[in-house]
């Protein structure tokens, strides 16, 4: 289990690094990039954080990492969904702000708590864990400028806008999970414990 945990942690760091690098050095202006935006690269990095939580949990036999990883699965899904839907919405700037803030781990949104749980799990690993946490924090920092520029580009672009319920629900979910994470952590806890066992 410990070896699997260590392997998962290394794979997670590679995913986070790869996703963040792709976010930063995306070929801007290329047709494919314009069509899909930063979503694939961002999803890759977020999947890395989920795996990191699970890997750390298996490595140190502590369910906190798995809880953080599973919570991050929920918050990253909501954040990525919002990032995808927001540009066509009436309150696009607000939605994009919520999505970007949650994905990079800013409070008071859900991504802050899930990432913090993962960093807390890393601290169990002593100095090596501290290095893992610092790398993960550094990747979060590096992903802000490209996502932020996306926010500016999308909010500046013109076109017909609509008001739909789904993005509003996603934004409220992100805020609710940030203010009261027990909403999702309660049901996820048995699953995290089972995974660690």
């Amino acid at each position, binding site marked *: 289990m410990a070896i699997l945990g260590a392997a998962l942690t290394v794979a997670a760091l590679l995913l986070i690094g790869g996703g963040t690098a792709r976010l930063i050095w995306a070929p801007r202006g290329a047709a494919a990039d314009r069509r899909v935006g930063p979503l694939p690269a961002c999803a890759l990095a977020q999947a890395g954080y989920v795996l990191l939580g699970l890997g750390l949990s298996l490595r140190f036999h502590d369910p906190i990492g798995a809880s953080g990883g599973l919570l991050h699965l929920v918050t990253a899904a909501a954040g990525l969904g919002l990032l995808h839907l927001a540009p066509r919405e009436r309150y696009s700037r607000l939605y994009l702000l919520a999505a970007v803030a949650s994905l990079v781990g800013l409070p008071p949104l859900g991504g802050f708590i899930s990432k913090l749980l993962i960093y807390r799990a890393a601290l169990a690993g002593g100095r090596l864990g501290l290095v893992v946490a*610092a790398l993960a924090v550094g990747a979060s920092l590096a992903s*802000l400028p490209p996502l*932020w520029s996306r926010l500016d580009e999308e909010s500046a672009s013109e076109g017909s806008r609509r008001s739909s319920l789904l993005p509003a629900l996603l934004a409220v979910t992100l805020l609710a999970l940030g203010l009261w994470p*027990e909403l999702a*952590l309660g049901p996820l806890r048995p699953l995290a414990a089972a995974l660690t066992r």
Partner: protein
Amino acid sequence: MEARGTILLIWALAAPLVASPLVYLLPRYTARLRGPQAVEVIRAPGWISAVVGLLLVGVALGLLASLHRQPVLGADFLWTREYFHFRLRADFLTVFGLLALGLVGTGWGLAMAGHPYRSLPPTARVQALWLLLLGAAVGVVLAGDAVVFLFFWGAALLPAWLLQQGSGADTARRFAAAAYLGDVFLLLGVIGFWAAAGDSYLPYLRAALGAQEKLVGLSAILLIVGLLMRAGSFPFHGWLRGAWAKGPLETLPVALLFLTLSAYGLIRFVPGLTPPDVVAGLRWPLLLLGAASVLYGAFRALLERDLSRIATYAAVNQLGYLALAIGASGAVVAAPGVAGALVYLLVLGLGWGAFCLSLEAIAARTRTRDLDALGGLFAHAPGLAVAMILAVLTMCGCPGLLGFLGQRLLFAGGMWSRAWPIVVLGIFGSALTAAYGLRVVARIFWGERPRGLAPHFDLTGSAGPLLLGVVSLVFGVWSYPVLWLASAALATVFGMRAG
């Protein structure tokens, strides 16, 4: 835990957060009855903000009564069942923080109630965001756990960024990048403390941080860099200058609150939690950074002609004194340095707050930020002139004002640290502060009034800065309450004797 204390803590946190949507919606409702351009409708958001500020001052005084019986008050709420607790905590340092925020909030609210806005939407938007920012700031001050501190610290970034949007997308992006970078340093520092102590509960951190000196030292450096970046201190002041040069009105509350919050964070984490040996190791870098900040800020303010830039460099100058005080707290006898830092927490809001609110009031009414285009305004705005003189005298540490007490204590701390050259540089910086401040006052209020310059000032426009200036004067003349509070904080929070 005393029930009254818990109620006061929740009250302080909830008041600005509840008032924010009210400020946005209530005047819109009254605008339907009276019209969107009625003066009372336009001024309502400012008045509500001022009331919230006064409420925070009231809560701080109420906490004092409870702290007299029990030196630490706390409230613990379930956040995530076994991992994090939402811990709020109040001690005598919290009272200093709440008083500073409350006074700054009242001054800002009054200043905005008197601001010559012509319609409701901008004032309601700015005040609603300001109150969200104030709510996050109160959360930072009340945080009893490093995670709760980080939560509110980071949460302040979103309303601040929305306020910065008024200065243009470029400025807002630069601000967000600088503030977020600072937050990452802060996060790494807190994680380091957390790893060294094994817990994030602040009283536990203080007790457990002695063991791993290297990790704690590195974390303390990261924390200090993060806090100074958010405040816009030298040499991280680029974003502040950029933001102010384009639209000070929207960025003023950001700068005002960030300065107060960073000062609070520095005091809470550096002499408050870091072991004395580590603080002693950081003494010289902090003293040098402080002296450089005081001198650089004062020199640049002396050379500038633009009111926004003068206010920005005045902030850099004033934050330098705080760094000096924190550096002086690394001495063998650290009490004067810590007491100086505590007093400076109030001086920053009262001195610099009154100074920049006065400049903003003048710029908004004369529609110019060029110092050369101003003059002879004393007859038009005597109240504002008095406020600005009090602000300048507070900033330069003139006897009779609260700044004098702060500077006397921090220079005493510097002498205990055997840092004579730094003390001399600090005193020289105070002379330069007086020079740039009085130059601005003389240029604006005396001399010949340029042709065509006939602004209308009313008493409400001067009330905010005047209030801050008068409070500084009262506590400068009668400094016993501030010294008593500082002594109580030294004994109960920092484990020191005032002497």
